[in-house]
């Protein structure tokens, strides 16, 4: 049965339990649209996630899902891709998930360059645990863990990803679904690790950064003279983070073979299709004699 004409094929019966007005709805729509645009079938896609409000997203998209542990969406995603590189594998989660608990996996995924798409719902706060400052919470951010305001310098995930060697680095905004849709399409098409940092509205725990706040600040890098192939410039524009001018779009896209293409083991057929009956180990035993 070919469903590709059914525009509802990625819908689920269950309804998201995000707060009304939550930016996660926008991200969910953008991803759904992108999957349609990419002409994928539900069974061809696997979405992994961590734990957090954002990480519930696989439940509300009709794709294979692995809703894993807090901070641990990327390792399972890598394993899935290597075991069956014909699948489209998308990892999602929050900023707490990806930039606190799971930051090591994120940085290493950038340089490892397995063909995954990683979408972070970055709302600057740990929402599901009822509001603590995250690594991307701005200095001075008041939360239950920082009653006198956060002391640490906020993490700049876009700059970090580029410095770590990522081959596709973009930033989106949960309030701009069309652009986000394009970014997701580009990310999935990208051969290698593709990272999208999505500025996500959390109406409950970060209300100061609502739709209006972002809307007044975001702009599209593509509209200027930005050249996503220029890594140095991308890095500089990423570090020159100015709260009043929030760049969105593809910061950097490079061209480098994905990890799995260096593995001849995967050349012929995905690992998962390889037969494992009656493997002969006698020659290996003989080597030990």
């Amino acid at each position, binding site marked *: 049965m070919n469903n590709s004409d059914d525009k509802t094929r990625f819908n689920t019966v269950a309804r998201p339990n995000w707060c009304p007005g939550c930016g996660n709805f926008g991200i969910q729509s953008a991803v759904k649209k992108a999957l349609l645009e990419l002409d994928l079938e539900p069974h061809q896609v696997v979405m992994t996630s961590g734990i957090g409000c954002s990480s519930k997203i696989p439940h509300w998209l009709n794709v294979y899902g692995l809703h894993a542990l807090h901070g641990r969406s990327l390792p399972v995603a890598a394993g899935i891709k290597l075991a069956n590189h014909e699948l489209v594998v998308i990892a999602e989660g929050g900023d707490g998930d990806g930039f606190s608990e799971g930051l090591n996996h994120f940085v*290493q995924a950038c340089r490892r360059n397995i063909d995954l798409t990683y979408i972070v719902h970055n709302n600057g706060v740990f929402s599901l645990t009822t509001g603590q400052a995250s690594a991307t919470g701005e200095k001075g951010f008041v939360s239950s863990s920082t009653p006198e305001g956060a002391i640490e310098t906020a993490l700049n995930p876009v700059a970090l990803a580029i410095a770590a060697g990522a081959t596709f680095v973009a930033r989106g905004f949960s309030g701009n679904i069309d652009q986000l849709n394009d970014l997701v399409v580009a990310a999935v098409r990208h051969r290698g690790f593709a990272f999208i940092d999505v500025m996500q509205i959390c109406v409950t725990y970060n209300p100061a950064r609502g739709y209006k706040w972002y809307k007044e600040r975001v702009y599209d890098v593509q509209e200027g003279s930005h050249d996503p192939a220029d890594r140095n410039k991308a890095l500089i524009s990423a570090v020159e983070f100015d709260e009043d001018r929030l760049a969105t779009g593809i910061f950097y896209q490079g061209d480098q073979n994905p990890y799995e293409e260096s593995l001849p083991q995967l050349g012929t057929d995905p690992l*998962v299709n390889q037969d494992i009956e009656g493997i002969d180990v006698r020659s290996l035993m003989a080597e030990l004699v």
Partner: protein
Amino acid sequence: MKGTNELSFVVGGFAGQGVNTVGYALARICSRAGLHVFINLEYPSNIKGEHNYAQVMVSEKPIGSHVNSVDLLLALDARSVVLHKDKIKPGGALIYDREGVEVSPVDAGLKVGDIERSDIIVIDMPMAQIAKDAGGSKKMVNSVGLGAVMGSLRFDFELLADMLRQSLEKLDDKVVAANLEGARQAYDIAREKYAEQVGIVLEKCDGPDRMLVTGNQAVALGAIKAGVRFYSAYPMSPSTGVMVYLTKQARDRGIVTIQPEDEISAAGMSIGASFAGVRAMTGTSGGGFCLMSEYFGLAGITEIPLVIFVAQRPGPATGLPTRTEQGDLKFVLSAHQGDFARIVVAPGDVSEAFYLTFDAFNLADKYQTPVILLSDKHLAEATWTQEPLETANMKIDRGDLLRTEELAGMSDYKRYQVTDSGISPRALPGAPGGVFKATGNEHTESGLVSEDADNRASQMDKRQRKTSTLDVSDIGARLHGNPEAKITLVGWGSTKPVILDVITQLKEAHKIDCSFLQVIYMEPFPVDHVSRVLNKAGRTLLIENNATGQLGQLIRQQTGILIKDQILKYNGRQFMRDELADLIGQRLREA
């Protein structure tokens, strides 16, 4: 003459000198000559300079353990003379280079000079000089030393020559010739001047082709046989050998091995790969398992098959990274929050390591749950001769895995369907009609997050039920030796070979008849089997390589039976045969 084909040999030196290579070369020569061999390696967590030694036990009969006393010591450095000379049996021999002996940088200033033991044969072999004369480098001393050893034992020089030719294959012909020449000289001196006195002879004898194999190699072979397609691990002694072996075979055998940033990721990648449908495995030691322990439970609740190889070393923390202990049993049995069905198996020798690794994959697939394969440094890295392992009857069982066709026929596929056995048919990503969520939260039969109280209870029950159908009453434990023996030794894992050797020794030397109850499945536990044996047993003695008798605690928890008499060793070293025999003898006299 003191004996034929029975030898306890030690070669000592400092890290970087190649002690392991020398021990292994002699072992291979003996093994190819039809003899049984066991090699125990003792080395520190250090790359160069600190003391290490290899002990090679040779016998015409099967042998699985070493003894404290030494027949022949080859000391490649000064420290080895100091440390090991007193272990030489009266009448035994020491080979060293009085003038040219090397001194490790960490021992700067250490002198040996004359040996003050008149009851041993001192073979002052100018190894450095011979090497130099033969035109070789410092490294050649090892070949010269081997020559001296072979000569002292009147073993056929051609066996050594063949071995050297093979192992130096990739080197320059000249180098090979120099090595042979140096070895020959030392051989001749030893044979002519000392062999008579030494009085131990090694001779070729008949036997099948035996492997010289470590537990780690056996595990890797078992995994390959089981069709492992994915191995992710972060290096950690003593588990690293499995990773290195599999990595070497990876391209040829269609396996992906990957060393990610940490053990967390290693566990996660294997879970992902297994979720996607391949047989996947990860390996580590206790410290790394701490880090894996969260993902371990994720595999439990999402019912993703996973084989975790845990090679124990002495803890806590970094402990003694290159030594041995059986201290992680309780940990792996209860790691992770909450309860879930897990399987824990502990092989006792290389053969069990091979077969149980294979079984572990079948169990993981069949029960859709993580399986821990518990080894330790001793089993992982010591070397035994092993008869060919039969593989004809090994059958892959992937459990209740749905084919694409089967799925297509289903209308409302439920990955976590509540069934009588607790096992639910499994779909793999990529299959149309199987779309589901694997969820680390409590979930419905479809895999969606659910906080419902009744659903929770039924999913918990379902998961717990799975392994209750795994009947370990036969395979979970094994009683070795005379079942009617008045004394029953109880143990597990890598102490098996030494305990079996001790049983033989006690019987032959002291007419003491012991049986040995080896526990193999730790979870599910062979409650009836163990209870039956222990209830019927006369005197019982628990033997463990840890400080608190962890198997003893488990037995008591599972059966209520307390084994009071415990022989526990926890100095980071494996039991030696003579030591253990003495300890048992002592206990028997005490009571």
